[in-house]
């Protein structure tokens, strides 16, 4: 295997780099002024972990994913904060050629499956060579060999895929090609944006097991951005829940799913229909997620949809934006009542 770029951090056994996101704020310029889509987010990706970032559409999770590569699209920009990646430094302060080479080189990004992430007029192989040319890869043969290895690892025929155009590949195949292109230069931080959206169930579970296996084999640190809690349950060690541009809860996946603390996380999990049991048990979250313009300027961004706030309106929920506080080790929740040690349940909920 050729180390095309310096692997970010490999100490003894293969483990991806640690990532520390601090006070990250991303704002979009709108006619109404600069509005934050991501607001003072603090998140740590432990070396070698898979973190799931969950949220509804408009929660700012895709903006977060792009920010990981300092690639927030205009009219948005990172206004504050830093993203420290081991062996690379603060991505927010990178620019120009160094930034371009970090993208694809150290940080791999995989587009949503439904999106056409390949040039429709060029074969996958030709685009692989464009990648080589852009990252000054000397040994193109080795790169092609590496690409074929990755593809066959994911159950595809390397020769066939490299000779194919995008329109000749199915959604699941495109997604695997996307993962190959993200990893072929030996990136050790992998960001996947909605990796299973728009795939059928079989392809979904295929892609998820590929993500898990490749993550372990290559020693990666992985961030999976999704709206699907099922995906998180399947692959992630840790989960971070986003709402209105804030991280409202984060912690180990099993703990968060079993015992969600934040009213939003709770609502999100209650909204999932089950295969067994009464479908009526699935309770849709009332209201709509806020858009850039309708995020409350002060107080808790979730209070308008919050069952707890509706039952017991507290003053601090209206006046101050709750800060994430550590409830138990590794478990952070941004909610005033939870921080005050009050029970989240206000009304008796049906057992599940």
């Amino acid at each position: 295997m050729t180390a095309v770029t310096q692997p970010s951090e490999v100490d003894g056994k293969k483990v991806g780099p640690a990532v520390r996101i601090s006070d990250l704020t991303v704002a979009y310029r709108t006619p109404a002024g600069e509005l934050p889509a991501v607001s003072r987010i603090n998140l740590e990706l432990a070396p070698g972990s898979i973190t799931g970032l969950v949220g509804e559409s408009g929660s700012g999770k895709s903006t977060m994913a792009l920010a990981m590569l300092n690639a927030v699209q205009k009219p948005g920009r990172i206004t504050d904060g830093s993203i420290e990646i081991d062996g690379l430094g603060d991505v927010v302060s990178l620019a120009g050629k160094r930034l371009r080479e970090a993208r694809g080189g150290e940080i791999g990004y995989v587009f949503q499956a439904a999106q056409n992430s390949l040039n429709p007029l060029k074969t996958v192989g030709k685009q692989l060579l464009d990648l080589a040319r852009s990252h000054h890869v000397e040994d193109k043969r080795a790169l092609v060999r590496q690409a074929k290895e990755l593809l066959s690892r994911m159950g595809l025929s390397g020769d066939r895929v490299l000779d194919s155009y995008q329109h000749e590949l199915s959604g699941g195949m495109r997604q695997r090609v996307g993962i190959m292109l993200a990893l072929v230069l030996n990136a050790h931080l992998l960001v996947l944006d909605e990796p299973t959206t728009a795939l059928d169930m079989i392809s979904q579970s295929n892609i998820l097991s590929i993500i898990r296996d490749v993550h372990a084999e290559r020693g990666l640190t992985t961030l999976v951005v999704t709206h699907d809690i099922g995906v998180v349950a399947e692959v992630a060690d840790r989960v971070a829940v986003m709402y209105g541009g804030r991280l409202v809860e984060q912690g180990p996946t099993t703990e968060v799913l079993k015992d969600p603390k934040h009213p939003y996380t709770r609502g999100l999990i209650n909204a999932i229909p089950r295969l067994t049991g009464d479908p009526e048990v699935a309770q849709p979250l009332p209201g709509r997620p806020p858009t850039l313009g309708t995020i409350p300027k002060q107080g808790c961004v979730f209070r308008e949809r919050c069952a707890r706030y509706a039952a017991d309106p507290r003053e601090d929920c209206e006046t101050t934006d709750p800060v994430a506080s550590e409830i138990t080790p590794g478990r952070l929740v941004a909610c005033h009542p939870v921080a005050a040690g009050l029970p989240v349940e206000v009304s008796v909920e049906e057992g599940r």
Partner: protein
Amino acid sequence: MLAFLRRLAGHLVRGVVMIWVVTTFTFVLVRLMPGDPVQTQYEKLLAQGVSAEQARAQVQVTYGFVPHGSWISQYGDYLWKLLHFDLGKSVSAQGVSVTTEVLGAAKWTIGLVLAGTLLSFVIGVVLGVIAAMKREGHVGSILSLIGSLLHGIPQYVMALVLVTFLTVKLKLFSTGPVNGLIDPGFNGPYLASIISHAVLPAAAFALSSFGGYLLTMKSSVVSVLGDDFILASELRGIKPSIIFRYVARNALLPLFTVLALSLGFMIGGAVFIEHAFNYPGMGAMLIDSIGNRDYSEMSGAFLLITGAVILANIAADLLYSAIDPRVRHGGAT
């Protein structure tokens, strides 16, 4: 390869049918026009002071072309000759075959319109890319404005403006015909003379048509820039120069069809421009032949124009399948 040949054969068959339909149409249309060639020539001779008797006889003898008989028999006759590539004799230019006439004029027109079309294509595409890249600034808006304005100016106005300023006022170009004293052929002075005569018409053509390419290219580039794969390539760290090529090739696709089709239509000539510059192309010939009610010349000219458009269509289709793999394989997702 086999699929390609089958495709080509299909195109050719359809092309021949189209040509037959169009020739039939023009055959009928031409004869529906008021006045007939014999009458026109006859009146011309009368105007020259020839007696009525003599004029009638001379018309018949000289041209050997009297539209007697029913349309059906004329039509059968016409088609039969057409199958032998015989377009008949020109009525206005005595004894010259229509094929010679038409090809002679086409030669001039192709030179003019080919140069004009390619010029306007290149200018339009380059400025269109710039307009798209700088669409948020003044440069972009000004280019788009210029594009729309020039696109809106009719060719004959553009031609007259150029003639007035560059030829009449500034005397940069001569007004006379291609110098007859120079030996025609592939030699310096003759070519120079031709080029100096073709520059203005070609410029008029390019100026009045690049606006369309500019606007089309601009919107095409803007739409490709918004495509997912461009962002995806950026996120893979692909070099800007390579991304630029991605954008250019994808954005050019729709323009190739337009270009190929306009190359087909170019045989028809730029009637107004040729007229304004007294340029001996197809457009001028067509107008003359209509004035003379020269049936065979008209039909011949229309036939050539039709054939060129159909050929251009075929070429556009085959070219498209060569540059767009999604068409090549017949299936797109």
